[in-house]
């Protein structure tokens, strides 16, 4: 059995390729400190560090003597570590950006309404590279000279110049104060553009998180500080335009394209970069789910909608609005009704589980359809005593074959765990399952952003569409576990089963009251 929505095929393939790396990172860092789970906010945090460490340096940098002032900064005890942090944080930010892109691909978060975020993300990355390259040139050592000359070689590939741009660095006299003034202006002004792009990038998500948790910020901030103090980036010899640069230190994060220019010349290098950018920019059109998202957008059954606004509050993408209900005067129905904007809906199904009367959700995945599916699943084989129903999110553990044929467990892959209606849990317990375990992704790694959070609040707190008080909470278990650690999820599920067997010696009798939303109601 399955909830229908799945990750794109390419995402599943990439997951398999990157599984060893993800497993290793998960094992080494654990869930809380795994930097890959919060790559987006870590990138922003690191860029914040870059800005904070860069501002004091700005006052000591001299456009008239760029290398000498940088050397003075590098030798000054009070500023050297700031310069190192500035450099390493910008490198780490690029690394975080790269991993953020990979995570988006892994989660299939590229197509449909996410297209805008994807394209703006590509622009952000390109801008970040430009800012980084400008920053590296500002140092004006041999490495900067090589980078500057290679940049000019690269843009020479554009058929728009009537004279070779490399002439800029032909003559030592040509590179003067005004050149470095222009560079420092760009290095300060372009990050402002970056800020606006970040706001645009996150504009389609509700409650966008722009900062990591304090413990994570402290941990990685301290690690960077230690690196900056004990391994400061070396300053090479001063640039000399009448000397060929020879061997240099390459900053792979910002100068990754230099070997391409060296190997294939300006036109080849530019063609390779254009191809790469084009390939990445076109991802939303070819890296997408098999079913178009617009046809999978949630819809609202206005007859069932009570206007409670819960789906409107829970939607992680601001795709639901409360609008005035068109109704006859004197009607006792709510004045407002939920409406889904299909252009914004990513079909995560989180609204499904937020609606007690089951009046909203993507086609085929509404609460009523979930109940029907659960009913068919239960009826097919019947429950054995002591069996635990495991519902796992397809975006995480649910795709793994590790669940097959495990005694005492019956497994069903679902959509995002935040889309599982609490009535399904109650139904499964009533149908004969000894316990129900829902395996979600770690909260910071949820493909639909807020699934585990809402699930937790609905099961253990009283967030609307909550699990009814009559359901014995001892028989329900929520587990946040990444897809790469399915073995742990299996062990936890088995332990839960054993625990239930030990705890619930007496068969638990549920009250005779039926679940609030019966399938019979729908039939009537």
């Amino acid at each position, binding site marked *: 059995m399955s909830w229908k929505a799945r990750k794109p095929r390419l995402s599943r393939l990439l997951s398999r390729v990157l599984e060893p790396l993800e497993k290793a990172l998960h094992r080494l860092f654990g869930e809380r400190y795994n930097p890959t789970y919060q790559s987006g906010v870590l990138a922003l945090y690191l860029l914040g560090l870059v800005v904070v460490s860069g501002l004091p340096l700005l006052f000591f940098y001299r456009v008239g003597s760029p290398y000498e002032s940088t050397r003075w900064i590098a030798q000054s005890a009070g500023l050297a570590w700031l310069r190192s942090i500035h450099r390493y944080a910008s490198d780490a930010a690029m690394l975080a950006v790269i991993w953020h892109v990979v995570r988006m691909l892994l989660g299939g978060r590229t197509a449909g309404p996410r297209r805008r975020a994807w394209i703006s993300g590509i622009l952000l990355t390109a801008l970040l590279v430009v800012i980084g390259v400008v920053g590296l040139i500002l140092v004006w050592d041999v490495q900067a000279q090589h980078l500057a000359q290679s940049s000019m070689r690269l843009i020479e590939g554009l058929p728009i110049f009537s004279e070779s741009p490399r002439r800029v660095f032909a003559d030592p006299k040509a590179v003067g104060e005004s050149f470095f003034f222009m560079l420092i202006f760009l290095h300060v002004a372009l990050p402002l553009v970056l800020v606006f792009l970040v706001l645009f990038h996150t504009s389609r998500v509700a409650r966008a998180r722009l900062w990591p948790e304090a413990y994570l910020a402290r941990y990685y901030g301290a690690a960077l500080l230690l690196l900056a103090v004990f391994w400061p980036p070396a300053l090479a010899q001063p640039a000399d335009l*009448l000397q060929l640069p020879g061997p240099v230190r390459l900053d792979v994060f910002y100068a990754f394209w230099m070997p391409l220019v060296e190997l294939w010349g300006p036109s080849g290098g530019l063609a390779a970069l254009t191809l790469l950018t084009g390939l990445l920019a076109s991802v939303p059109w070819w890296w997408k789910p098999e079913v178009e998202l617009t046809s999978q957008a949630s819809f609202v059954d206005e007859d069932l909608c009570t206007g409670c606004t819960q789906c409107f509050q829970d939607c992680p993408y601001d795709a639901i609005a409360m609008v005035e209900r068109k109704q006859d005067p004197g009607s006792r129905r709510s004045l407002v009704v939920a409406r889904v904007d299909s252009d914004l809906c990513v079909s995560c199904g989180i609204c499904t589980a937020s609606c007690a009367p089951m009046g909203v959700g993507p086609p085929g995945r509404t609460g009523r359809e979930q109940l029907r599916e659960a009913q068919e699943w239960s009826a097919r084989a019947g429950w054995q005593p002591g069996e635990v129903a495991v519902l796992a999110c397809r975006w995480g553990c649910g795709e793994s074959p590790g669940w097959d044929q495990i005694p005492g467990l019956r497994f069903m892959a679902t959509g995002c765990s935040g889309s599982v209606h609490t009535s399904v849990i109650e139904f499964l317990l009533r149908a004969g399952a000894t316990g129900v375990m829902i395996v979600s992704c770690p909260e910071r790694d949820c493909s639909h952003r807020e699934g585990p959070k809402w699930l937790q609040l609905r099961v253990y707190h009283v967030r609307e569409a909550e699990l009814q008080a009559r359901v014995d909470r001892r028989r329900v278990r929520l587990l946040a576990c990444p897809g790469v650690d399915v073995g742990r999820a299996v062990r936890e599920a088995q332990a839960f089963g054993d625990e239930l067997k030990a705890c619930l010696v007496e068969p638990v009798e549920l009250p005779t009251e039926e679940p609030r939303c019966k399938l019979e109601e729908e039939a009537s």
Partner: protein
Amino acid sequence: MIRRMLATMVGMGLLAGLSNLPWGRAERSALIRLSWRTTGQQVKVAKVQDPNLPTHMRLPESQAFELKIRPYRLSVQLDQHTALERAVLAPGFRHDRPLTVFQEFSVTPGDHRLEVTFQAQPLEGSAPPLTARPFAAELACQAGQVYLVSLDESGQWIYYFERANP
């Protein structure tokens, strides 16, 4: 926790390593670079007008001529061999932008003789061009060095290397 800290240390080490990756090799050749930008010789060329036009219909003197930049011929002789021979035309849509030259020649370390000629070419309807003085020098090239030859606005050769005999 120890595992995490070790992993972080390794990660930070990788970060530092990748941001300072040794790359490139020591240069085994020298470079001769020709680079200049000049307005060159400008000439006034009369526009073609019908001689039968009455005086009041002819273009005024301020509009009767157009300013053109002469085409040039760049010739580079390296060790008595022709390394380059090409026309240099004023760029731009109306061919009125300054002439630019940027050429680089990779040479082996050692003694080389360089001769550069940048000669204006005749332009139809204008006086013959002035003859330009060629540049010639004996260079003792060292690996990794750049030998820059340039031309200023007045047509004087400028060079950036020690041993030269222009």
